[in-house]
């Protein structure tokens, strides 16, 4: 028992080995994986890119917070409020260390990557004027397109798009050519949710900085798969969603370089984000609290902190090796099924395999797999420009996480053969 009356993170419950990555041990930490779903089949969860499952220690941390420490933060002079504040700010420090940010004041808690991008776009929009340009890429999620379109339409600025090739790799020379005096901001997918492509973001940030242009990385997909070091990447802003990082929904992180955050105007007004309020004038709180109006998602932050603790204890070289193996095996075996077209075959990818199966509609593939207990995503993946690029309405996506196994890949492949038997 610590001062806060129990675990404030992923303590004794996590069985994940420190030394060598052990998928069987990891699986024991995720109770939902034992669930039996449709047709009496054990759950095979391959929709991790949409939302990952949570380790028991994260669920316990949230439960423990509500049972023992629940109160509002930064206000009370009583024990529970102080505990809640310690836990909330402790989670901020965990996020800081996880991303290797220089200080915890560079971590803003938001609802998720989407809110983080909106917060930044809202601020950048006020600096834009007609003739300015914002650069995004062809493979962005809608959440890294629409906020910038809104910023452009408010100011008369233009959205420019970095093209990609058939494999789903960005054209870096086209990107370099797009960067110019008129470029005011670059917003870039770190890893594509629809294709799995890992973009050469460090080099792309360097190119933008040569022009004095700030860069935001949408790392919602990358964060669960690659170790992120914001100082090494040298990005100005980075966003991630807790629920894709084996944490709770409704909580995410906006990292902003101290000076870059300082230059952003407040996003939402309300309590917590102010220092003094009169009817004539309001002065704002310091960064990061200036961007956290209202009572924050305290339990969400606590849960995210627990998930980060859990991930910090994993052998990340082992995680990479394991996920890459799953990706390579799935690519080879799914790609060998008659009628399959793989969508997204970049040289550098995270563990996402996207495909179509002859002219069987992806929703039918998804439903048949569902009857076998297998959860995949079928649809446009909130990346309609990517679907348009490949001239498909939708695709099937199998996305792998730390707890998936080679046997599960084989179970998926066998079920896909079953889909062929039904429809072809």
């Amino acid at each position, binding site marked *: 028992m610590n001062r806060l009356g129990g675990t404030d993170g992923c303590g004794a419950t996590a069985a994940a080995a420190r030394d060598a990555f052990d998928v069987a041990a990891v699986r024991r930490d995720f109770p939902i994986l034992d669930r039996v779903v*449709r*047709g009496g089949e054990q759950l095979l969860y391959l929709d991790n890119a949409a939302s990952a499952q949570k380790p028991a220690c994260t669920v316990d941390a949230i439960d423990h917070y509500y049972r023992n420490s629940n109160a509002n933060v930064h206000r009370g002079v009583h024990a529970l409020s102080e505990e809640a504040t310690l836990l909330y700010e402790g989670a901020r420090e965990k996020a800081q260390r996880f991303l290797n940010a220089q200080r915890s004041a560079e971590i803003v808690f938001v609802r998720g990557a989407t809110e983080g991008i909106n917060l930044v776009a809202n601020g950048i929009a006020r600096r834009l004027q007609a003739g300015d340009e914002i650069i995004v890429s062809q493979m962005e999620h809608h959440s890294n397109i629409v906020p910038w379109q809104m910023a452009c339409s408010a100011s008369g600025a233009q959205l420019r798009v970095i093209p990609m090739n058939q494999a789903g790799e960005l054209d870096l020379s086209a990107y370099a050519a797009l960067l110019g005096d008129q470029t005011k901001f670059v917003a870039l997918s770190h890893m594509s949710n629809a294709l799995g492509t890992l973009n050469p973001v460090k080099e792309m940030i360097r190119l933008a900085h040569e022009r004095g242009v700030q860069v935001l990385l949408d790392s919602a997909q990358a964060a669960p798969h690659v170790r992120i070091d914001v100082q090494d990447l040298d990005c100005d802003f980075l966003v991630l969603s807790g629920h894709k990082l084996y944490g709770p929904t409704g909580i995410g992180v906006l990292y902003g370089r101290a000076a870059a955050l300082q230059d952003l105007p407040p996003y939402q007004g309300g309590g917590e984000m102010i220092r003094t309020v009169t009817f004539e004038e309001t002065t704002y709180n310091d960064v990061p609290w200036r961007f956290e109006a209202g009572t924050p998602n305290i339990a969400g932050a606590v849960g995210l902190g627990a998930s980060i603790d859990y991930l910090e204890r994993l052998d990340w070289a082992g995680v990479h090796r394991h996920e890459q193996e799953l990706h390579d095996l799935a690519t080879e075996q799914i790609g060998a099924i008659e009628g399959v077209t793989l969508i997204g075959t970049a040289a550098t990818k995270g563990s996402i395999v996207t495909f179509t199966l002859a002219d*069987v*509609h*992806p*929703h*039918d593939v998804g*439903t*048949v797999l*569902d*009857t076998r207990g297998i959860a995949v995503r*079928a*649809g*446009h993946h909130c990346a*309609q420009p990517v*679907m348009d690029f490949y001239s498909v*309405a*939708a695709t099937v996506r199998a996305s792998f996480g730390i707890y998936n196994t080679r046997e599960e890949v084989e179970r998926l492949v066998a079920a896909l053969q079953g889909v062929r038997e*039904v*429809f072809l």
Partner: protein
Amino acid sequence: MDLRELYQETILDHNKAPRNYGEIPGASHTAHGHNPLCGDRVTVQACVDDQGRITEVRFQGNGCAISTASASMLTEALQGKTVAEANTLVDRFQELIRLGADGSDEELQASLGKLAVFAGVCDYPSRVTCATLAWHTLRSALETTGADASTGPVTTE
């Protein structure tokens, strides 16, 4: 639930060989349907004579097996029906999807004939809009009037 309860032979057959697929030049009623969730699109056209009887129905579009079969079987079911009968059938079809095989009575299922094969969709809430898209679209088409009448897209949102 077994896979075959959803993807019954009739549904697979209509998906592979849709009936009444194509355009009706000069149709008296047209509507376009769109399911933003999966990107499915369907156009339903009908010709209605002076007595308010549907003389021809056709559809075009891209969709999953459930939505294609549903549109195809709709065109067969509505041939020769009056507009009032068609609207009743749309109501009954939606009722069947809502209640499912176990929740709906035999009379409802019997009145729908072959269309009763869609009862299994009830157990797959995310697929309900696939089954009903063409039906929403048909109802919208029948509400339009005039030779070139064409409504804005009917969406399942």
